[in-house]
Every structure is written in C-alpha cells, then in structure tokens.
C-alpha cells in the first residue's frame, strides 16, 4: 500500500517536495519515424510505481500518437480539403493532430492527478520536450519531520 498523504494535491506536491531526479523515456523507432515511446520500465522508478501502471500510461500515449499520425481516409480528406482551400481552412478548424494533442494533454493531467502525484512523480507532456522524451520528475518529500522521507520510502516498498 502506498502512503497517500501530502502528495494527494498537486499544489502540496510543489510546496512540500523537492525535485530529486528526472527520468527520460526515450523514443522507440522500431516502427519508423512515428511518434512512439519505449515501454521499457526504467530502474529509477522501481520503488516508486508499479510496472503495469507505467506501461499502461506509455501504451495509452503511444495509441494516442498513432491515432494522430494515422494515414487513412480522414487524413487524405483533411489534406485534400486543406489544399483546395489553400490551407486557409486551418484558420477556422483544428487539425486532427491538434485535437489529439489536446486529448493527450488532458490524459496526462488526469494521470498526474490520479496516479503519479500521489507517488511523488510528475509527467511532462512530450510536446514540451520536442516530442523526444517523456520526462518524469521524481520528487522527494522535503519532510516536515526528519524521518518522513524515510517513512514514505519504506511504506512504498511494502508492495
């Protein structure tokens, strides 16, 4: 069981925790230049989060990006329509990619609130890092008492 205390609220996370480390999940190029991230579980997060939760997050993100970059009927339609209107249509409507990026942003925020912040972690949206990496910031409790950081790690290593 994880100790869900001061990390419940993202605001409290900022005030009470200090940044200890950053883990960078790299891109996976095995399928070409499509945006896809490696699902390999980094060892630095071993004690902080379950492997399955992490993999689920990355796989969901990969699915979102695959949806955004899918080349099919809808992308052809969008491309042809845009070309015919000399790309002025993008002043009025959002591209499919932009729509999916907004979904991704909401998903990351939701994951941060529900899954990562309670474990002292924070995911940065890859778009802010040039779609190169998923940056996961690892926070450690500054601790109101000296032993609190110790206690959080011992309790988290329980599972």
């Amino acid at each position: 069981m994880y100790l869900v205390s001061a990390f419940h609220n993202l605001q409290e996370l900022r005030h009470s925790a200090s940044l200890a480390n950053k883990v960078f999940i790299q891109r996976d190029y095995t399928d070409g230049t499509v945006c896809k991230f490696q699902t390999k579980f980094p060892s630095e997060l071993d004690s902080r989060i379950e492997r399955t939760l992490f993999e689920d997050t990355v796989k969901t993100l990969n699915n979102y990006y695959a949806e955004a970059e899918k080349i099919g009927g809808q992308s052809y339609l969008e491309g042809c329509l845009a070309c015919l209107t000399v790309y002025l249509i993008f002043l009025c409507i959002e591209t499919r990619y932009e729509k999916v990026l907004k979904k991704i942003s909401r998903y990351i925020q939701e994951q941060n609130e529900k899954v990562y912040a309670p474990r002292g972690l924070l995911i940065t949206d890859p778009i802010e890092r040039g779609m190169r990496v998923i940056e996961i910031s690892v926070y450690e409790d500054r601790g109101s008492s000296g032993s609190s950081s110790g206690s959080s790690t011992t309790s988290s290593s329980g599972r």
Partner: protein
Amino acid sequence: MSAVMITRKVTRKWEKLPGKNTFCCDGRVMMARQKGVFYLTLFLIVGTCSLFFAFECPYLAVHLSPAIPVFAVLLFVFVVAMLLRTSFSDPGVLPRALPEEANFIEMEIEAANGNVMAGQRPPPRIKNVQINNQIVKLKYCYTCKIFRPPRASHCSICDNCVDRFDHHCPWVGNCVGKRNYRYFYLFTLSLSLLTIYIFAFNIVHVVLRSVDSGFMNTLKETPGTVLEVLVCFFTLWSVVGLTGFHTYLISLNQTTNEDIKGSWSGKNRVQNPYSHKNFIKNCCEVLCGPTYPSVLDRRGVMLEDSTRPTPSDASAASTYKSTNPVSQTTKSSAPLIPNEHTPEEAKPSIGAGTQKSTSSPKEEKPPSPTSPNAVAPAVIKESAH
C-alpha cells in the same frame, strides 16, 4: 515567497530561442536570416504575373476566353500562398535539450563507452536502432545535445536540427523539413504550371497579335512580353526540373539530404526503411499525411522568475517545471563535455554556404573531423580526477 512583479511586456519564447532564425509578427513568422533571395523570388513571381495581367490578359480575355486570366489569377494566388506558407512556417525544428536531458544523455553515453584509455579517442557518438528490420545509425548532435531522430539533420545556416530535413532553400528563405515539405512541393509544382501557362499564352498572344499587326509591332505594343518570355524560359528549366526531382524523391520516400549522401543507394548500404515500396502509398504519406504540429511553441509566454506564471493551456506539469529552478539536485556526476562546435565556428561555413545557388542542400558541416581530437583531451582531463 518573495513579492512577485508582473511585468507589462511579456517575453515570448521565440525571443529566447537559440539558432539563427528571424521571427516576425511576434513569433508567428519564422524564417532564416538571409532573406534576400526570397525577396527576389517574390519579386520575380509578382512582377512577371503583373506584366502578364497588364499586357496579355486584356487581349486574350477578349480574343480567346475570359477564363484565361481567371485561371491565371487562381494559379498565381496558389503559388504565392504556397511560397509564403513554406517560407514562414516552422520546418520541423527540434528544440535543443534542456540541461537535465543533456546530462541524462551524457550519462548514458559514458555508461555505454565504459572507461576511455588515456591517449585513445572515445568512440563516435552513435546509436544503432532497428527500423523495419534495418539498422539505422542515429548521430549525436553536439550543438543541440541530442541524438538526432532518424531522418533529422542539423542545418548549419539556421543552426537547428530539423526533423525529416530535406534541404535549406535560399529561394524560400527557410529550411525544408517535415512540416513544410508538402507546401514546398506544391509551390514548385504550381510554379511550374504557372510558368508553363504564362509562357504558352505569351506565345499564343504574340502569334495572334502578329497575325493582325505584325511581329515587330506586337513587341512594341506589349514590351512586357519579351521580359516575361525571358523569365519564364529560365525559370522553366530550373523549376520544372526541380519538380521532377522532388516527384522522384517523393515516390521513393526519400529526402534530398539522403539522396545527396547516398544513404539508401548502393548494394552494401541499407535499403530505405521508410519506403512503403509502393509509389502511391509513398506519395500519399508525404502529401496527404497528417499536419504535424510545431513543437517550438514560439508564441508561448516565457515564465521568468520575477513574473507570476501566466496560465497557459499547457498542463499543470508545465507550471511545476517553471517554478522549480534549474539548479536542482539532478544526480549527475558525469562531467559535461563542452560543445566545441560553437556558433562562431559555424560562421565561415555559413558565409560560404550562401554563395551557393538554388536549393543546394545545406547541413551542419560535420564537426567529426576535428571533434574526436578535441573531445579526447577534454574527456581524458575530466576522467582523470
């Protein structure tokens, strides 16, 4: 918390972007520094078309069909729109690594290289990845401090890594990369059509008028014709040839950069892992693929320490990142190898590069001839303690 001041003038991110781009309209427009040739391109297109509308169109509209000038106008608008779109948009610039990411990569490299013996140069920074069952080498960019994604390349003129880098085109005053390649192609294609159109109707016009008034009189009545024919004649050869070349590249899903370097040619070389081996599919991917977003966020507001973070539509994570000062306890004991390829060093290559003519590919003159020697002493010195 110390008292925070809200500065009246916001600093947008484009003002602090490294690289040698110029920005206009508060970050909405992004171009290379040297824009002279771009103005020439614009002048030639607008000038020639103006002459066409002034001299030929009235005659042709009356004697042949009013559809001729109408179609010319549509084509002209399309050409200029594509040119502006190519020139003003972000070609797919990859932002440089922030210090933590750069450190992380350095640590990975150090771990992969192991101990470097004194006097030996460290191995080149290359990562091998398997793409569609082919081994592709990813090179490390010393300027941007990242391993370049496949098909990305560093443009020495703009001093940026560009995704799916095709070439730096002085005629459009910008790099051609993933985000603006299709606009560039449509520009060359439509310009070819426009040139052929104007050339053809100039001939038609001269012929028709000569029948009535004689050849010399025709030239005297419409002096613009001569100029137009001259411009079109020279443009035809270059632009139509370029369009043909890019059509060939698209059908193979290759970039100019790869073609010049011969990345996928030759028996011993890797076959192009990005090609679908189908002409139609390759064309569709390049021309009708998704419109990639810019990852630069040029118009985002800079969050400085003295200002209250302004809410942007980024997620909560970004406000965290901003309020955490960079000097954090990132556990990096590995020394950072200094960047020996400074912008000052790149200047001579830029000076030489701009003298080159149409759309010759430009990329970072690789620092590899000098860098291993430069790096080795630095590495040895650092690892000695």
